[in-house]
């Protein structure tokens, strides 16, 4: 029983879980600000910022995250001589990637706010920025919660790709384990269960929240 691969792999998975969560949360924390900036730029007046944000969003959403991971890993040092440890590259890659998707979430929710709100704000003398900050943004934030939760699930799954740059997250640990024991099926199955332990409760919780918000 104790020497079953299903049990043996557990310490590996717990070790990986820490990295997975660390990278997901740190990456999304940075990605949220990136996405908020890019999303707001995309609903701003045409000009440099809006153009740059559009290019950012379209390029990131149009290319595989694995290619982005390699580019962040090699490109930054190649181009700028920045040498970051691979876990930092991983956080940055998640931030850059999720930022583009979050930008679309931000844009969508901001645009979904009744234009009458903007007009009411402006007609009271609030500036464009004040209207965004005090009127539109707080309302948009509420609506962002479910899609952001969904992005959390996506990014969590994406961290598995960092196994290719040897960041010690869940899937990397799993591969390390079966590299030595040749029990890939058992180890991978347990790894999937670990992911499900986080993703399924999250998505149930999100669905409930969405229901409640629609009900309102």
């Amino acid at each position: 029983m104790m020497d079953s691969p299903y049990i043996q792999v557990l310490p590996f998975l717990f070790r990986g879980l820490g990295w997975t969560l660390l990278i997901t949360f740190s990456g999304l924390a940075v990605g949220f600000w990136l996405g908020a900036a890019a999303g707001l730029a995309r609903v701003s007046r045409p000009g440099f910022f809006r153009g740059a944000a559009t290019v950012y969003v379209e390029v990131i959403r149009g290319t595989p995250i694995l290619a982005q991971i390699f580019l962040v890993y090699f490109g930054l040092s190649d181009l700028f001589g920045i040498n970051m440890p691979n876990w930092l590259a991983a956080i940055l890659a998640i931030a850059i990637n999720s930022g583009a998707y979050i930008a679309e979430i931000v844009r969508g929710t901001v645009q979904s706010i009744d234009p009458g709100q903007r007009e009411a704000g402006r007609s009271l003398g609030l500036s464009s920025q004040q209207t965004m900050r005090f009127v539109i943004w707080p309302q948009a934030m509420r609506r962002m919660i479910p899609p952001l939760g969904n992005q959390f699930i996506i990014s969590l799954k994406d961290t598995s790709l960092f196994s290719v740059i040897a960041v010690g997250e869940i899937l990397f640990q799993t591969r390390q384990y079966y590299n030595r024991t040749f029990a890939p099926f058992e180890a991978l199955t347990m790894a999937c269960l670990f992911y499900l332990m986080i993703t399924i409760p999250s998505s149930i919780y999100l669905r409930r929240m969405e229901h409640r918000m629609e009900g309102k």
Partner: protein
Amino acid sequence: GDPNTVSVATDSGFVPFEFIDENTGELIGFDIDLINAIAEEAGLELRINTMEFDGLIAAVHTGRHDMGIAGITITEARKEQVDFSDPYYDAGLIIAVRADNDTITSEADLAGKRVGTRSGTTSETYLRENHPDARIVAFPGIVEAYMDLTAGRVDAVLYDVPNVRYYASQSDGNGDGEQIRTIGDVLQGEQYGIVFPKGSPHVEPVNQALRTLRENGTYDEIHAKWFGEPADSE
């Protein structure tokens, strides 16, 4: 930062040179012990980073890391991209097949067969140059190639001797009989070296330290720890 802190790139799936201990999760192996001994000798502070082999030399070449140690074979082509230390290990390439395979008995039988190896390694280059008629499957990680071999998706694997030997012994220790065995002789004598970006100031101190370790017996100790015997008896 601190000029004495150097960032070292290594692989994490090359037994017994560098791999993760399944009990502790620590990166261990011959290369790891050696580079730590070198660092101590040369007064360097190490920051070790692991990555897939196929990007490792590129990562050192671009200056992403100050050095790389991962059983890297010294070749002329690579010398154009990076500087090498003095050789620290004599290796070579060897073929592995499934234990029950008796159609492949030598290198000559590889023609038309599916041969697994690891991408970016001298094994891949060797296969492309000497066996253009074999069907080469180059995985980013070598373990995937061994798993394909045991599964029967490739007919043979060509890779570095110590690693192949390790897996051959490991696979029969698994309780289900011998699965992989090596055939023939070492195909190409090779030597491993540590890589540095071109013109790196670290080459000389590292060579100096390596010489000292060989002289004071530390190298032999490490060798014995990982290969069960001192270096000279190979």
